[in-house]
């Protein structure tokens, strides 16, 4: 990062700090969510019932259309060639053999690519979503091992793949920094979202040294890749200077804006659609492949389909970086924390801005007499790392929650009891009140359901044949976020059908189904009278499906749109209506019309209002409020994670035999899809605990296992029946009383497994993944 950017970020940080204080001190009623969403009080509606996915029939018949499946006339197929060195210059680049092959339409290299602007990298502008800030194929420089060096377009994929294999490149190699240990000589304090991560309250080191009990350990987590099963791909076409991109995206509006900057055109000239996305987990943003395919399409004057190979995804789409974390806790004999230290180092690059913020969970997890939190970053010559499911919390909770377990073992107390002892009253590092925090209740119900009382407090004492059996627990946590930019268009037609349009995303979270339920309940319509349209950058809103914030963003936008709609309807209803003279806040949607909230006999149906006003439809567009609630209250989701593992004494294999997640995530809107999200997160957490590692060759900077055969993700046989329960206590300050739940499931899982492995064997593994060699 440049000095200017650093200074800009710090200045923004200072301004934010002043604003933050004002928001913290404001009366609740000034803040969004200060008056609870009326939907929270609904008891017998659709929300909270089990509803099957509305897109289910399309998905089980193969009819759902993914990005690389859009039919276009005259389509050509793309294939890429990748650099094999981490740093240097291209010396020679011979494309003649590739160009000579039948069917080849174009070979594009830095010599022929159109001039493009550098990609605005994530978090440098509201809609910036580039994975790195580098110019794409603009010169002979190589910045990472695997950077694309040529694009081939051909009539068929087979022709393109063959041609790409014939591209001959030689390099002038330069010395690259690819060793983490070497890079640590030059480490810098890192900032996240414009604010420094260094946090000091009291003198934690001194308090740690003086504490009668303490743990002080180093934990390591490796690189990870998201590995959605749908490969990154796109089908795109230029119509004049306008680009139409069918993408696999979790941020259509961001991609449209960012691509417009790259190509030097207006945002409105880029139209991104993404109706179905085959998993994202943080990876389906903007990487080189969309840019290169669009550039090549422009040169060739043909529509292009690009679908990365699985290896291509590893070469070009960043994953989660590695972390080395120190957690030290100083405690009194009664378990109260005097000092909580969570510091460490992560790797990133000079061309991105994502220092994995592993300290985030520690900011609000426990009360302590003193805190020292910090993340330092080093720069490597590698593919830019990026956000992956629960960035920060997923790996941070591994270290923090392992250390709490270590302290509990040392003190000889139950690890749940130790956590309760240190339960904070308010956010321990900001002092702001919690909006809704019921982690103790989640632990109690989870422990009872799981049979925690059957856990042996002494490790290594439960044996079944050649298997040692143990139980472990850990806290899951992820913030409630709501990013600015949510907006929605709401249209009601004279047949009483409502359609909401919002540039949001359905990657399998259940968004389309759940928000159809929510809108139906808000308007008092059956679900078949409500349509939720999404996944199109021409729709209102800048809504990233990330940070578990999409539910809140859509929720707040729909609340605003509903108010606007009711305002219009009351105007149309006029003086002849039973609703005459009422304000929007005095009416609610009920059985196909509007009713006075405190007098359900004063009603008029939507059909009646529109027909009397001689209107075919009424359409409104509104933006969600500024997300000030996240600064006024400390808003988080929680979970108590319980694992039972079996460790083979002969082979060292670990099998997770039972797992339970007990969650406190506000109101659960659709238990059926919510259960799947929780389980899905937990399963990715099991992968992180036991098998997932992107192996990085520190000599060459090259990913060594770029395939699903060598990067292991959990398969059917690795996954037991996972039990999921929740408090269902609504967060009074969140739209619908609900929190997004896409990420919390992965947090705490690796620690729960590691703690269970310790309980089973007496061996403490502080270095993920917990493979059998570490237990032999």
């Amino acid at each position, binding site marked *: 990062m440049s000095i200017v950017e650093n200074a800009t970020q710090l200045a923004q940080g200072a301004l934010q700090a002043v604003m933050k204080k004002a928001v913290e001190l404001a009366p609740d009623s000034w803040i969004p969510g200060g008056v609870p969403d009326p939907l929270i009080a609904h008891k017998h509606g659709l929300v909270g019932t089990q509803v099957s996915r509305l897109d289910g029939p399309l998905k089980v018949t193969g009819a759902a259309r993914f990005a690389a499946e859009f039919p276009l006339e005259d389509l050509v197929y793309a294939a890429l060639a990748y650099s094999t060195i981490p740093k240097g210059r291209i010396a020679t680049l011979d494309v003649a053999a590739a160009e000579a092959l039948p069917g080849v339409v174009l070979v594009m290299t830095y010599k022929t690519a159109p001039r493009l602007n550098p990609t605005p990298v994530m978090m440098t502008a509201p809609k910036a979503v580039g994975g790195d800030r580098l110019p794409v194929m603009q010169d002979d420089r190589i910045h990472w091992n695997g950077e694309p060096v040529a694009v081939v377009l051909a009539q068929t994929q087979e022709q393109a793949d063959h041609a790409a294999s014939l591209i001959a490149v030689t390099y002038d190699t330069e010395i690259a920094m690819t060793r983490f240990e070497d890079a640590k000589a030059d480490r810098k304090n890192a900032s996240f979202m414009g604010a420094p991560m260094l946090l000091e309250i009291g003198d934690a080191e001194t308090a740690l040294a003086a504490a009668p009990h303490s743990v002080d350990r180093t934990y390591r987590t490796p690189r990870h890749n998201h590995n959605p*099963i749908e490969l990154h791909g796109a089908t795109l076409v230029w119509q004049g200077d306008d680009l139409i991109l069918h993408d696999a995206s979790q941020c259509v509006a961001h991609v449209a804006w960012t691509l417009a900057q790259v190509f030097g055109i207006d945002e409105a000239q880029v139209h991104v659609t993404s109706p179905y996305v085959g998993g994202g987990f943080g990876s389906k943003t903007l990487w080189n492949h969309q840019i290169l395919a669009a550039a090549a399409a422009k040169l060739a004057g043909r529509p292009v389909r690009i679908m990365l190979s699985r290896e291509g995804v590893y070469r070009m789409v960043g994953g989660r970086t590695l972390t080395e974390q120190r957690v030290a806790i100083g405690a009194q004999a009664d378990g109260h924390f005097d000092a909580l230290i969570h510091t460490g180092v992560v790797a990133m690059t000079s061309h991105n801005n994502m220092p994995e913020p592993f300290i985030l969970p520690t900011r609000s997890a426990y009360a302590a007499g003193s805190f020292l939190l910090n993340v330092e970053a080093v720069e490597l010559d590698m593919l830019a790392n990026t956000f992956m499911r629960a960035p920060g919390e997923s790996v941070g909770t591994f270290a923090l929650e392992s250390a709490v377990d270590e302290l509990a073992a040392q003190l000889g107390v139950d690890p749940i009891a130790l956590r309760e002892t240190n339960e904070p009253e308010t956010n321990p590092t900001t002092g702001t009140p919690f909006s809704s925090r019921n982690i103790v209740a989640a632990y109690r119900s989870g422990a009872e359901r799981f049979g925690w009382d059957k856990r042996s407090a002494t490790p290594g004492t439960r044996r079944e044949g050649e298997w040692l059996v143990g139980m472990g627990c850990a806290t899951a946590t992820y913030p409630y976020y709501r990013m600015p930019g949510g907006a929605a268009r709401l249209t009601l037609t004279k047949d009483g059908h409502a359609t909401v349009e919002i540039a949001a995303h359905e990657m399998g979270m259940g968004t389309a189904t759940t928000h159809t339920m929510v809108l139906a309940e808000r308007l008092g319509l059956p679900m078949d009278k409500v349509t939720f349209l999404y996944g199109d950058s021409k729709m209102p809103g800048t809504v990233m499906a990330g940070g578990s914030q999409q539910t809140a963003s859509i929720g707040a936008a729909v609340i605003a749109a509903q108010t606007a709609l009711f305002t219009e309807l009351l105007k149309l209803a006029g003086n002849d209506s039973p609703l005459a003279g009422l304000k929007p806040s005095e009416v609610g949607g009920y059985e196909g019309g509007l009713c006075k909230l405190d007098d359900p006999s004063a009603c008029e149906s939507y059909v009646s209002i529109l027909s009397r006003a001689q209107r075919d439809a009424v359409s409104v567009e509104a933006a969600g409020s500024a997300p000030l609630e996240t600064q006024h209250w400390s808003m988080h989701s929680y979970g108590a994670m319980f694992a039972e593992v079996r460790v083979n004494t002969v082979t060292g294999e670990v099998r997770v035999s039972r797992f339970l997640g007990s969650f406190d995530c506000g109101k659960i809107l659709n238990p059926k899809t919510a259960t799947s999200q929780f389980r899905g997160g937990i399963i990715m957490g099991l992968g992180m605990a036991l098998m997932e590692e992107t192996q990085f060759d520190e000599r060459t900077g090259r990913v060594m296992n770029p395939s699903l055969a060598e990067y292991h993700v959990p398969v059917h046989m690795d996954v037991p029946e996972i039990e999921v329960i929740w408090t269902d206590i609504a967060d009074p300050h969140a739209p619908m009383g609900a929190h997004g739940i896409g990420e919390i499931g992965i947090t705490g899982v690796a620690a729960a497994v590691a703690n269970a492995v310790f309980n089973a064997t007496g061996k403490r593994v502080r270095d993920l993944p917990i493979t059998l060699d570490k237990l032999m």
Partner: protein
Amino acid sequence: MQFTINDRPVEVEVDLRTSLLDLLREHLGLMGSKKGCNQGACGACTVLVDGARINSCLALAVQYQGRAITTVEGLADAEGLHPLQRAFIAHDGFQCGYCTPGQLCSAVAMADEIARGIPSHVTGDLTAATIALDHDELRERMSGNLCRCGAYNGIVAAIAETYAAAPARQEEAA
């Protein structure tokens, strides 16, 4: 090249290098079969050839001339969805839906393998006349179909309900 695909005769001329998966997707417009790795590691491309499951990404189309190929588009009949498709919806056996066609085709053939008495790695008695479709058999036999969203519990429940008389939940094997 001639094939029977989802009970319909198909004749098409393609490059000999074309995989069965690319034939289906790019030449015949049958996009239901998915490409997740193109190297036989994820199972998203699973289709049935004369009732047996294969990874269509590892198969050259030219090898399968004259064979009867069933894709996810061919599972439902005129009466409506296949019972397994309905069970996947009822048990939420998917999230993003990308691995789903492969899971469905794989499960249909897997049930047939069990019915034919073909043992697996976890089958206790290799000489038994019948193999129960219990939780371990089911999970072992479906382990070639990856689901990154982690819908495994729902998938297992859906397959168990469709093909096994006994409930899926059994004691986990170590």
